[in-house]
Structures are given as structure tokens and as C-alpha cells.
């Protein structure tokens, strides 16, 4: 899968780095609260590594990494709504705040969206015509057939370009022009 420089993959990478930092922060907070037991760091660090690997592979252009990231972020999104539902239980509540919405909903949703955008193949030229999209142009393709030809310009500054019908241009001139362009 070709990866575009400065494209969505780089944005996904940075968002995943931030999520990794959130995990590290949460893990260390829990370790401190649980009397310094490092066992509480195992899962956060494992998920951090997983996120980092997936994000790096996305930048490398691996399709499986895109799918894996969509799954991981999907789990995060589903988890948020499950917690929201659990908040209706009598014993616990769930607090929704601005930052929580950004980190638990907006960021995973953005990663899913960007990965999905990269995962879906771009429409072919035929599909683009079908859907009214502009057709990609190959810059190295031969020029289209023309019905007029441009007479080679003399070295006169600001001289107007003269366009004459092909029929009146001597074939010798056209041949010379073609040779110049190719040479």
C-alpha cells in the first residue's frame, strides 16, 4: 500500500503516540495508588507497545496494521459506551466530561476514520467518471491529438504566439518541432 508523505498515516502515528502516553500516565498513577506494585504496569506497557507497533506499521504501509488499529480503537469506543451504560447501575455512576470525550471518543474515532480512509482503495478512473469525479491525469502520458499546431517562436521578446491551422503548416516545420520536443 503506498503511503503518502505527510498523509493520514503520519497523523494516525502521532495520535497513537499520544494514546500511548495516556496509558503510561494511567498505569503509573495506578502503580502509585496500589503501593508501587509494578504488576499494574504490565498491561498498560503491553498496550503501549502494541499501539506503537501498529502505528509504525501503518506508516510503513501495512494494511493489516490499519485493520488492527481499527479493531483496537473500536474496542476503546465500545468500552466508552459500555461504561456509559454501566453508569445507570445503582452502585456506580459514569462522569462524562470534555476531555474524556476528546480522548475516549474523538481521538479513537479520528484514528478509525483515518485508517478506514486509507484502507478503502481510491476509486479508479472509470469509477471517477461514473461518479462525476475528476479523472486523474498521468503527467507522462503522450499529449492528446491536436488540430492546431504552434509555430516555433522567434527570439523576439513579448512576441505574440501565432496559432495556425495544421493544414497550413508545412510538414517540415512540424517535423522539426517534434524533433526539438523529443530531443
Amino acid at each position: 500500500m503506498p503511503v503518502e508523505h505527510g498523509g493520514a498515516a503520519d497523523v494516525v502515528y502521532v495520535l497513537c503516540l499520544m494514546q500511548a502516553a495516556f496509558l503510561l500516565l494511567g498505569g503509573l498513577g495506578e502503580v502509585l495508588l496500589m503501593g508501587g506494585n509494578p504488576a499494574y504496569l504490565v498491561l498498560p506497557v503491553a498496550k503501549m507497545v502494541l499501539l506503537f507497533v501498529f502505528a509504525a506499521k501503518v506508516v510503513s504501509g501495512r494494511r493489516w496494521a490499519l485493520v488492527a488499529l481499527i479493531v483496537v480503537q473500536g474496542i476503546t469506543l465500545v468500552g466508552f459506551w459500555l461504561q456509559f451504560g454501566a453508569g445507570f447501575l445503582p452502585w456506580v455512576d459514569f462522569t462524562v466530561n470534555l476531555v474524556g470525550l476528546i480522548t475516549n471518543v474523538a481521538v479513537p474515532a479520528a484514528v478509525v476514520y483515518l485508517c478506514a480512509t486509507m484502507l478503502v482503495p481510491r476509486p479508479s478512473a472509470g469509477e471517477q467518471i461514473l461518479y462525476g469525479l475528476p479523472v486523474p491525469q498521468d503527467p507522462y502520458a503522450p499529449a492528446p491529438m491536436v488540430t492546431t499546431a504552434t509555430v516555433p517562436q522567434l527570439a523576439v521578446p513579448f512576441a505574440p504566439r501565432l496559432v495556425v491551422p495544421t493544414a497550413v503548416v508545412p510538414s517540415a516545420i512540424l517535423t522539426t518541432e517534434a524533433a526539438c520536443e523529443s530531443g
Partner: protein
Amino acid sequence: MNPVDAFSVGIAPQHVPALVAACLLPVLVFGVRRLRAPGAHTRRDLGYFSGPGAPTSSKIAGVGAVRLWAAWLLGIAAAVHLALPLGHYDGPLLTIAFLGSGAAYAWLAVRALEGRSWRLLAAVLLIGTLISYLVVAGSGGEEPDQVGIATALVELAALGLCLVPGREPGRPRRFKRFAGSTATVFVTFVVGTTIWIGSFLAHAATDTDASAAPDGGVGAMGHTGDHAEEHDHAARAQAGVIMRPIADHHPTLAQQQAADRLAAATKAAMKNYAILDAAIGAGYEVPNPGTGTDVHMDNKKFKNDGRVLDPQRPETLVYAIEGGRATLLGVVFVMERAGRAGPEPGGPITRWHAHNICLTLLPPGFGIVTPFGTCPALSVNVTSPEMMHVWIIDNPSGAFAEGLDDTWVRAYHAEHGRPYSRR
């Protein structure tokens, strides 16, 4: 607490204009684009699908996703900074600083969108802004609120885009990418930690203010009545503590008397549990680990007895247990159902709070939700039922303070601790 209250509880009123400005930014951008020449930039123009098929006529055509995201993030930071002086007037110097940084962010957003160089200048500005914010928040100058933290998040994301260079075919730039990635994680971690510390400092400051009464009477009850702003800080949902906002920070005489009565009744009733063995006999359970300066012992029977704020049957006792001796410090009244507001006989003096915590299963444990609103992997974020401390000892922070000073507790425990036999 209903969801709207819960959502708004962490937003400082003086930051509301900044939040509104950030929310209005997409509308503004949409309006500006509509006003420009017909057929001008669409999403395709902005390069989201930049490629062979994208138009190349416009100035901003071909802008990659990184530039587009950077432009939006810097634009949001600009909107927030430009709107901050509307609700946050702290003198002309700070106002000029807000406006200057806002204008600089807007300028950099336009540069990023137009395909001009932006990374270095943006990185310098972002780091400067973040450091300034952390200095204010970390020193307790201002409690970090939701708008402040959200803006820091936006700035961190933009900084990440600045620091991590894009990968190009034939130019892996491994070292630069590694350094940029490490720096992004590190800066995000440091910002989060500092905001956390700032939040705790602000809460500690609330208690200190509450105890700073010139006369022993009201101050001992944990409220001076002269620090409305400081108590406002306590109403914000950072540092894992959620408190309902209150309309009036100044208790009436009746409320002060009611709070005094509650504290006195609790103190009298708790004489029964001055010895740890008596509490264990009454059904209070020693947690694991069962030592420290704030050991919370729950009574399951009292938690489900349908009684609220009963001095005879507090749901939790708090002990200092160290060196084979125990000192009863106070009680915690806990509401039976989460999300239900507790009664406040003492008005602003007897304020309830809830804890926003992360419960983990592997291994079983709990932590506090980070300032970024996240929990460790495979954990559940829950908010506890409301609770209220009533301290039965004459601690400097007052009977209704949120917590006690650890050093003070150790000294008190050394003097008043009583031996116990059972565990």
C-alpha cells in the same frame, strides 16, 4: 448528578468564552470558505485526498493530512487564546500575551494550510505556551479545568505533528522519527503529570483556605466564608474528585449550627470505636494493606441499611494504623446509590464529593482517572457514590476537610494511638 451538571462541573466559568470560540471555529471557517470565490476550496482542495486527481489550481491544493490537521489544531488553539481575555481578565500583560499567542497560532495555521514552513515556529510557540500553562497550573496559580486541559491536548497533538517528521520513500529518517516520537510521548506524559499535581495542589489549597479562619469556631468547621473563589475551585472535576457546584459559598448561621451539630454528634458516637477491636466487632472490615495513615474500613451492613448521614452508623471509619497502634481519625458517610445527591444540612460546609476512579481486573486494583480522562488498559472508569468526611479529631483543616495532612496525622497518631489486638 445529572449528565449536564457532570459535564459542566469541570469547566471554569471564566473559560466558557474560549470553549465557545473553539466550537464556533468550524462555523467561521465554513463561512469564510463560502464567501470566497465560487468553486473554491472543498475538502478535496484541502488535500485530504490529495493525489493525481486532486485539483492543483488553488494555493492550498495538495496540502497533506498532516498540514490540514496541524492547521485545524493550531486554529483551535488560536481561537481559545484569542477568546480567553473575554472571561479571564488578569491584567493587561496577560491579555496581551493571550492575544499575541492567539494571533501567532492563527498565522501559523494559515501558513500550514498554504504549504509554507510552519513546524519550527509552531513547535517553539507550542512548547512556550505549554510551559507557561504548566508553570501556572503546577504552582497552584490556577486549577487546571477541562477547557485548559483540552487546549493542552490540542497543543500536544499539534506539537506531535511538528516533532515527528513524515516518512518519505528513500528517506526513512529513523533517528529523527525516533527522537520525535520519544519527545511526543515524554512531553505528553510530563504535561499530564504536572496537570495532575496542579489539580491536587489546588484541592490542598482549598483545604488550607478552609482552615485559615482567624477564630477557632468557624474555621474548625472547615469554612471561613471568605474564600468563595477558592471553594469554587473545589467544584471542578479534576484529580479524580467530583463535587457538585453550589450557588452560595457563604453558610448561613443555621447551616453553621447544623454542621456543628453533625460534627459533635459524630464525635460523640464514635467514642465507641476509639479502639480498633470495637470497630471490627461492629462489622467494619480492615482492608489489605491494613496499615497507613488513612486506612478506610467499610461496613457492608451499614452501606445498605437505607440510612443517610446517620452519626451512629457511618458507612466507613478512617484510622491511622501503624506500629501496633490505631487512632480513629474520622468517618466517611457514603450515599447508597451512585449519582444521587447527599443531604447538606450545613450547606457549603457539608459538601459531598465523589471519586472518579479506574477499576482494573488484571491485576485487581484501582487508580485515579488521569487528567486526560483516561484509565489504564482494560480498566473501567466509574464514579463512586457521593461521600463526605467528618473528622472527629481537632485537625487544622477542620471537621469537613477533604483530607488530612500526613505529617500532622503521624504526629497525632504517635501521641494518641491505642494498641489493638485483633486484625
